């Protein structure tokens, strides 16, 4: 058994480009999914009944589907239905954003709900209106509870970007597997792929731990 690890170095440009795409996808997805998640959460908490039902249905639907299926569905179905074809990258981004928005909506909703009623009442008896109570009392506390979960979702998202490789988006997983197919250096490339994800993901996981310790709730 001979291993040729130089193949990793030879293709470093492609791997770096793939890694950049992975990071881009992660950042772009969160940039969409955080505001959208807030909107959906607010609709779920404060909207009229039909709006609440719709928002809940959306969240429950996407939380109970495998992401890889959503990616496939997003790639094959809209072009037939609407005649529009998005690039694989855009499609992948859309699928990821739909998925993560649902999780974020649940995170925001649970975070806001976890603030005891008494807090809002205490704010109101001081003379604050609903908006002020929300802004100055509920949101600061909710942020403390939401941030750790959001950080955890971020790391999961980072790993989930690998799934859009199935529709040929040129992120890290796809690029690695292409190089593997072309060079026949299976063990080297797959191990390199795992190693790069590890190098990027491990510090992120540790950062999440730090955030969770820092924002730990002690009541």
């Amino acid at each position, binding site marked *: 058994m001979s291993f040729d690890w130089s193949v990793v170095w030879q293709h470093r440009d492609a791997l770096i480009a793939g890694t950049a795409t992975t990071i881009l996808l992660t950042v772009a997805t969160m940039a969409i999914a955080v505001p959208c998640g807030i909107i959906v959460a607010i609709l779920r908490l404060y909207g009229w009944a039909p709006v609440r039902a719709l928002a809940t249905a959306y969240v429950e639907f996407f939380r*109970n589907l495998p992401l*890889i*299926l959503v990616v496939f569905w997003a790639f094959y179905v809209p072009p037939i239905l609407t005649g529009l074809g998005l690039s694989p990258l855009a499609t992948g981004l859309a699928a990821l954003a739909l998925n993560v928005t649902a999780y974020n909506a649940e995170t925001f909703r649970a975070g806001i709900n976890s603030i005891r009623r008494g807090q809002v009442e205490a704010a109101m008896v001081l003379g604050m209106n609903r908006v002020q109570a929300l802004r100055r009392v509920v949101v600061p506390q909710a942020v403390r509870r939401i941030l750790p979960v959001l950080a955890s979702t971020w790391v999961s998202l980072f790993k989930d970007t690998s799934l859009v490789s199935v529709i040929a988006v040129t992120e890290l997983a796809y690029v690695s597997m292409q190089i593997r197919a072309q060079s026949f250096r299976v063990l080297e490339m797959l191990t390199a792929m795992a190693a790069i994800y590890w190098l990027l993901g491990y510090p992120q996981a540790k950062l999440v731990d730090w955030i969770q310790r820092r924002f730990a709730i002690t009541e």
Partner: protein
Amino acid sequence: MDFDFAVITDHWRFLASGVGITLLLSVVSGLTSLVAGLVVALLRLYGPRPLRVAVVLYIDSMRAIPVLVVLVWSFFALPILTGLTMPPFVAALVGLTVHLAAYAAEIVRAGVESVRPGQTRAALALGMSRAQIVRRIILPQAIVRMLPAFGSLLSITIKDTAIASVIAVPELMRQSETLAGQSFQPIEVYTFAMLVYFFILFPVTRGVDIFYQRVAHLGRS
């Protein structure tokens, strides 16, 4: 635009076998990762220092590496290292177990650590040994406390089996891909697959919630 769901009914056996493999892989890898996770957690909580360090490294690594990568590595790279060839289902089982056991271990650890220290003190005061305390007092309460997290992990397990399609395991996702490709009817096929997954996953999460409501008081000290 007309939808022809005959493609589903014509090939229901093909799809049903996919559902069967999905369920089988979910249940088996769920069980193996549970057992492996328990062992890993106990090593982390009560094992000697070098073992504990190795375990923490393993757990944190699984938080960094995607399931897809673990599965692909298990199927394509592991045989090169070990000289053993594994059928796709076995490779998927190995990959899923290795990945999910790390999460299971964290759930067990969190559950055990969440039991009040007063419970240990009360049991010590009665004269119980450490082993007796873990077995009879800590674990029963911890297991109840772990239920919601394990329900969530089961849901993740079922979703992760769909990724095994990438290494040609004939579960539902793979069967759907094949059928959609051959029939040129991706809308019907993938929509059907979505519904099947939803109707498997939704009851699982709801069921765990309801079961937990009933037994939560057994874990509240």
